[in-house]
């Protein structure tokens, strides 16, 4: 009896995991096309247009090309770590999709199925933990390449991610003081019945956004792969699909951090006035998923917009911004939030 229920739950979660991972990979795949199209639009070009109508098959062509390239493992590298690097980068990128609530529950054969893989009560800390592990893929891969440029790229990546994690963490503390919960599902429920968190935490959202750019190694903070100084940075020695994994992990990170930002500050799958309507739960959940996807797409577009607009920072500028501007701002935000909550007596 117990086993039967467990099996059903296992099956339900397994299907959900497969769908979420597949959707994540698919969206990240088309984000690469999106990036090139946005870049073309910003620079008054057409962008990829040969593969399929309007270039719609370009990501597939890129993937096939990468798979068929010759794979080179340098002689002086430690091979095991060299292979493990890109795998870890990919793994940590996908792992954080586990706790994001993609929608409200749906009803299948009279049974409520929540659209979140794991609703743990430490949700946001889990994201934080996975983000802090993300640096290992870069560091192992770069060290195993046995190349000085790679190593410098990895050191830049590690120090950048550790520095911006501080401001990110303190911003999250302010958000947690407002919501009073660590669970992402709970946060979305609160925003459904009240206001979106962006109204309470505008400064916090701004700091979070800048830190997300730094954590994803996106321009203007893409110093670990600054091609004019480091000839490619941490993935210099990589070829074939291993290189593809590193590049692809960046797009997955972008997708996941957009999802986290939409969930934390913009109500997740919440559509205003939807919960007052009398739609059946399945249709309401579908509308919610579409709303979340629209929010995520808007954020991804913003990531790309910034990449093709703002030039890369210098390394000392990056560190100054992180330690001397963002960290004090985040502390200020936290203290003001705490004071306001104290005076309002919530």
């Amino acid at each position, binding site marked *: 009896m117990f086993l039967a229920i467990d099996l059903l739950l296992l099956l339900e979660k397994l299907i959900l995991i497969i769908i979420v991972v597949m959707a994540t990979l698919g969206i990240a795949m088309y984000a690469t096309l999106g990036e090139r199209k946005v870049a073309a639009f910003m620079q008054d070009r057409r962008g990829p247009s040969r593969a399929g109508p309007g270039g719609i098959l370009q990501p597939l062509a890129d993937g096939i090309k990468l798979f068929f390239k010759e794979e080179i493992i340098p002689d002086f590298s*430690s091979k095991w770590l060299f292979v493990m690097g890109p795998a870890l980068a990919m793994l940590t990128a996908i792992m954080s999709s586990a706790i994001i609530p993609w929608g409200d529950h749906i009803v299948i054969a009279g049974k409520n199925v929540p659209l979140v893989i794991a609703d743990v009560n430490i949700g946001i800390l889990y994201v*934080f933990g996975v983000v*802090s592990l993300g640096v*290992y893929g870069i560091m192992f891969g770069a*060290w195993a390449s046995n190349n000085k440029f790679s190593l410098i790229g990895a*050191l830049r990546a590690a120090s950048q991610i550790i520095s911006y994690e501080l401001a990110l963490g303190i911003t999250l503390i302010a958000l947690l003081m407002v919501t009073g919960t660590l669970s992402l599902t709970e946060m979305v429920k609160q925003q459904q019945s009240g206001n979106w968190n962006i109204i309470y935490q505008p400064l916090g959202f701004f700091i979070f956004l800048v830190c997300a750019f730094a954590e994803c190694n996106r321009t203007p903070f893409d110093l670990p792969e600054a091609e004019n100084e480091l000839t490619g940075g941490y993935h210099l020695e990589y070829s074939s699909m291993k290189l593809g994994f590193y590049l692809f992990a960046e797009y997955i990170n972008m997708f996941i951090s957009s999802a986290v930002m939409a969930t934390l500050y913009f109500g997740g799958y919440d559509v205003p006035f939807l919960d007052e309507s009398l739609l059946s739960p399945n249709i309401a959940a579908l509308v919610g998923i579409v709303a979340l996807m629209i929010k995520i797409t808007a954020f991804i577009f913003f990531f790309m917009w910034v990449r093709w607009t703002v030039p890369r920072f210098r390394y000392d500028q990056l560190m100054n911004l992180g330690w001397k501007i963002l960290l004090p701002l985040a502390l200020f935000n936290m203290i003001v939030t705490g004071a306001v909550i104290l005076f309002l007596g919530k």
Partner: protein
Amino acid sequence: MSLTTILFILLSLMSVGGALMMLTTKNPVMSVIWLIVVFFSISGHYVMLNAQFLAVVNIIVYAGAIMVLFLFVIMLMNLNSDTEPMRNYKMQMIGVVSGGCLLLIILSALKQLKAAPVQIAVGDQGLIHTLGKTLFTNYVVPFEVASVLFLSAMVGAILIGKKDEENAV
């Protein structure tokens, strides 16, 4: 055998095996990887005791921050086997004897311990609400003292860093 028992055995094998591998591998980077495996298995034990907060903080602080700094140091120092200091036979014997003494003391202390059997996956001891309440009511003075200690360590580190900068000019 229940599922929790199987999980416990697996996690324990993972932590003990990982610790042994960490000690015996020659390559310092591989040692770091095995130590990370140990931290993950210990976090697994925390989850089994229903202490998710401790589990995830263990990963954030140890696996995510401290081990990255370890890696930093190892990668920059470029440790090779020929730069490793020679260990002589006498030192190894002293190490074995003192380690054995410590093991003996721990074993005898554990033998006299009469604690209630551990409750798996129940209780709210490790949940964040309980932990926060305990830290800010019963243990507020030690908690604040510890934070002052961290602050002084940070100031000290900055001071050491600044001193070099002045001399260099």
